[in-house]
């Protein structure tokens, strides 16, 4: 149905309009969504980067993400539980979304001190040629109560307390840090839902005005915004004088010209649980006269949506607001944070209604991002019923943090070993609470029940149809014997002869010289057998952090494989090579089958959380003090290392 693109212009080269990077979203399966604006759709996001150091402008790198696809949120700037050296092992880690609020603990935020072409990439250790980085003010999965937002500031949460962030500051940080995309600030209240119509109307006005503020800062000499008066903390100690604009800046004021150096902007779609409010906000983005900012502010555009590269919706806050709304109108707790039973069905239907209210007035060719989906079930429904393009991975990271190894695939693969573990309702669980004692002697790979094997399991070349290689660091541990990257320490042995793995000599290259060895190393990667459920069970019970590294890595890989499966089924329908088994309803059928076969994760996560808490209490921080209190020294011995 076409594509949209947004460009970031290199502001450092005055007079040059050469785009520094281009963000594009293309829907490749128009026929899928022709019947409805909200049918499932295939597409891809691409970011093309030109090397500005290369004078010819020919050196480019391009990052492609097929959709429906995944993006990953960072926590304090890191992917939870994964160290940087493990990032390259994860093909799913292409788009990282960076909640910026934790960096507001310092003023100015420390990443803004970083110099270079891509300061945010450099500070966080991501590579421009491999990673798309977006900046978002708040963690989209955090819905806890917060102080009120004001006309010109949003309240954000840091470890040192609440900070205020103004749209002008947000713009400044984006200009300094060169992320590939930014999410606009939105006035989402986290105070006391449900919210009145008046409050929602105020949200709409403010959010629209704040996007306008991103397009164009206030002209120099304009009165200081209320932000400064409202909260002295936001004022910088350095540049700002009492009469200067509130947003401090180490960057000179940007001219109000069409060639904006700001990265492409994604707008969070707001309006809480009111379809009318959500619709009203969508209209505000399309109107030529918007209530908040004056029209000058959105130049060069005639309405806000022209300046937007995509949309996002936060389900975490919606869940919160829905449950408050339900509690205020009836006694039944209709909506839960979890994902259980009929409540979840009600949730899914409500989400669909609310998302459609937001998206219906807006152009359909821009990417739709949903934060806070919490199960494959929700993801499938949002793809099928709402045409969502990108999902965040926060829920699979949380699963890994709580000790769950995910084990599901789309389309459903035939019963494999261990699929006899079924839940009470006779359904298959989507994963394993590896704290459970039944895994102590289970030497299967983490995702064996749904057909995941390791790259070292001997089927890597052409796995049978009911098998798929899981590329995570748990299932496919890469052998480093003879690795050129291997760190050498002074005088070192050149070979580690390993009976299990394959060393350089075993590959028959001993006499072929360094050149041959290097070529071979490039081509051959050798893997050990997968780390087992029993090992991760052991690590969980001994409170070892490595357990979570394995689980997060694995869970992200399973989510990516799941979405790859979704794309696979969708492409069979719309790709032109329609096979006899593929009908336009094949995707719907596979979705129904998945929903029928797999249990929702509510109970699984609940059990894992309980075990996690028990082990954490027995072994986590403050354990010694707790045991001293109890006067109980038996059991203390278990975890101490000496």
């Amino acid at each position, binding site marked *: 149905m076409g594509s949209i693109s947004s460009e970031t212009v290199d502001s450092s080269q005055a007079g040059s309009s050469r785009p520094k990077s281009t963000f594009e979203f293309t829907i490749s399966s128009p026929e899928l969504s022709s019947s409805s604006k909200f049918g499932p759709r295939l597409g891809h996001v691409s970011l093309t980067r030109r090397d500005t150091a290369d004078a010819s402008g020919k050196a480019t790198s391009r990052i492609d993400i097929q959709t429906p696809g995944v993006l990953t949120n960072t926590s304090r*700037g890191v992917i939870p539980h994964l160290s940087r050296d*493990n990032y390259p092992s994860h093909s799913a880690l292409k788009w990282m979304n960076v909640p910026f609020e934790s960096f507001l603990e310092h003023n100015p935020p420390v990443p803004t001190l970083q110099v270079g072409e891509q300061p945010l990439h450099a500070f966080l250790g991501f590579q421009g040629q491999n990673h798309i980085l977006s900046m978002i003010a708040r963690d989209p999965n955090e819905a806890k109560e917060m102080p009120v937002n004001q006309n010109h500031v949003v309240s954000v949460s840091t470890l040192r307390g609440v900070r205020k962030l103004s749209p002008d500051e947000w713009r400044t940080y984006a200009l300094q840090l060169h992320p590939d995309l930014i999410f606009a600030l939105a006035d989402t209240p986290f105070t006391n839902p449900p919210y009145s119509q008046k409050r929602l109307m105020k949200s709409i006005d403010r959010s629209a005005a704040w996007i306008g503020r991103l397009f164009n800062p206030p002209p120099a000499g304009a009165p200081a915004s209320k932000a400064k008066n409202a909260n002295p903390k936001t004022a910088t100690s350095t540049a700002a004088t009492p009469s200067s604009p509130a947003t401090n800046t180490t960057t000179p004021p940007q001219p109000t010209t069409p060639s904006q150096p700001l990265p492409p902007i994604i707008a969070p779609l707001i309006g809480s649980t009111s379809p009318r409010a959500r619709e009203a906000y969508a209209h505000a983005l399309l109107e030529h006269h918007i209530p908040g900012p004056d029209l000058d502010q959105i130049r060069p555009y005639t309405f806000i949506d022209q300046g937007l590269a995509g949309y996002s919706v936060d389900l975490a806050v919606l869940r919160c607001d829905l449950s408050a709304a339900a509690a205020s109108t009836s006694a039944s707790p209709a909506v839960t944070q979890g994902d259980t039973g009929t409540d979840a069905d009600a949730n899914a239907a409500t989400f669909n209604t609310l998302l459609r209210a937001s998206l219906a007035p807006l152009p359909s060719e821009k990417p739709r991002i949903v934060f806070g989906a919490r199960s494959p079930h929700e993801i499938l429904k949002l793809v099928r019923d709402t045409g969502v393009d990108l999902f965040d991975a926060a829920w699979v990271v949380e699963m890994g943090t709580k000790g769950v190894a995910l084990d599901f695939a789309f389309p459903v693969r035939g019963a494999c070993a261990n699929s006899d573990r079924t839940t009470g309702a006779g359904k298959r669980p989507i994963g394993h609470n590896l704290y459970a004692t039944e895994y102590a002697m289970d030497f299967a790979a983490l995702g064996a029940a749904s057909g995941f094997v390791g790259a070292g399991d001997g089927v890597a070349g052409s796995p049978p149809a009911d098998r798929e290689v899981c590329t995570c660091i748990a299932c496919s541990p890469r052998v480093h014997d003879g690795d050129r990257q*291997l*760190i050498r320490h002074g005088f070192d*042995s050149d070979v580690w002869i390993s009976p299990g*793995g394959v060393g350089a000599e075993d590959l028959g290259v001993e006499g072929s010289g360094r050149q041959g060895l290097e070529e071979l190393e490039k081509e051959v990667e050798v893997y050990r057998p997968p780390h087992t459920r029993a090992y991760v069970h052991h690590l969980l*019970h001994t409170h070892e952090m490595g357990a979570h590294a394995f689980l997060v890595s694995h869970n992200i890989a399973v989510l990516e494989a799941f979405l790859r499966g979704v794309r696979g089924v969708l492409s069979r329908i719309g790709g032109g090579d329609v096979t006899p088994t593929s009908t336009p309803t094949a995707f719907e059928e596979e979705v129904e089958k998945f929903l029928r076969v797999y249990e929702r994760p509510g109970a699984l996560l609940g059990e894992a959380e309980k075990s996690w808490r028990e082990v954490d209490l027995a072994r986590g921080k403050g354990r010694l003090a707790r045991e001293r209190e109890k006067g109980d020294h038996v059991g203390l011995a*278990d975890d101490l290392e000496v």
Partner: protein
Amino acid sequence: MTLAHGVTMLPTFMPVATQAAIKGLTAQQMESLGVSLILNNTYHLNLRPGLDVLNAAGGAHRFQGWNRNLLTDSGGFQLVSLSKFTTITEEGALFASPFTGEPTMLTPEESINIQHAIGADIIMQLDDVVSSLTVGPRVEEAMHRSIRWLDRCIDFHQKSGKSDSQNLFAIVQGGLDPKLRDQCLEEMISRKDRVAGYAIGGLSGGEEKDVFWRIIKQCAERLPEDRPRYSMGIGFAEDLMVCVALGVDMADCVFPTRTARFGVALTHKGPLNLKLSKHAKDLRPIDEDCPCPTCTSKMSRAMLNHVVTHETAAAHALTLHNVVFQAQVMGRAREAIIAGTFPDYLKSFFRDYFGEAGYPEWCVNALRTVGVDLLDGISVPVIPGNAAKWEYADGP
């Protein structure tokens, strides 16, 4: 040193993987760091996952996916340090099971049996451990018992048929008393044909550094040239340097990995406590020249300050770095020894690591006995006592 799982160059430092994992890191990451020998704790593995699981998995190597060399201790040290209920009898160590509270006996035979199941390339005799601060007849009793237990361990090990793939080390005891140490050395060296290496035990328990190095020197001088010498529980860089100079080949300690989790990065210029706010805006990596993944990714001190103690990924980053730091310190020592420049290396190490802060007096004294004068041609303060270097909030 060639073992069943490959070659490990000596002298070396062994990172400690108490529970069958270097905290937070995968076996593959350890491989990539160029580490070829790690340590597991028998006491812990016997409790969790337990021998049933290890046997079913095919040993600890397979269980943790580690295909290089592995050493296990005997479990004796943890019995004493972790359980106040442990009673030592001639038969073995009687202790209350941490799970059931039931009296359980760990005999020398059982310790070796467990270590056979774990399958480590180097296994340690069960010794009668007393704190290095203990004085009186208990120390002598423990020394003699350790010799008797060594004989039982040797017998059991040789009859098991595992002596081809697993190497038994003796542990020299005798507290801080040179006479007892001499007796123990005498006895244990006489069993040289049946032991693959020797450890120096009963140190690093809070004794005076001045006593510590003299015992190390005494043991290292007498232990046979053709057997590796392993100094247990040594991990501070200056301790390692002195021990290597005195003739030690192997050492282990949880210090580098534990201190990483508390936010401390070890460098050739002394430790950096990254929790301190003075690092909050410092965009330099920990060490420009360090080959570890953390430093080569240019992860800044500021970024580390932002995440230490909040994100496990920070612990991983610092653990990666500290493991590489220890390996570099030892690797450079190997290089210098081969080049015949070890005395110069010692001098440059101390100059970089301590610099103006002053050299520990005990290091100066210890190295003088092997003909290295750290103070030769340099004027720095000499600090009595332990004098380990640390970075405090109000430090320089």
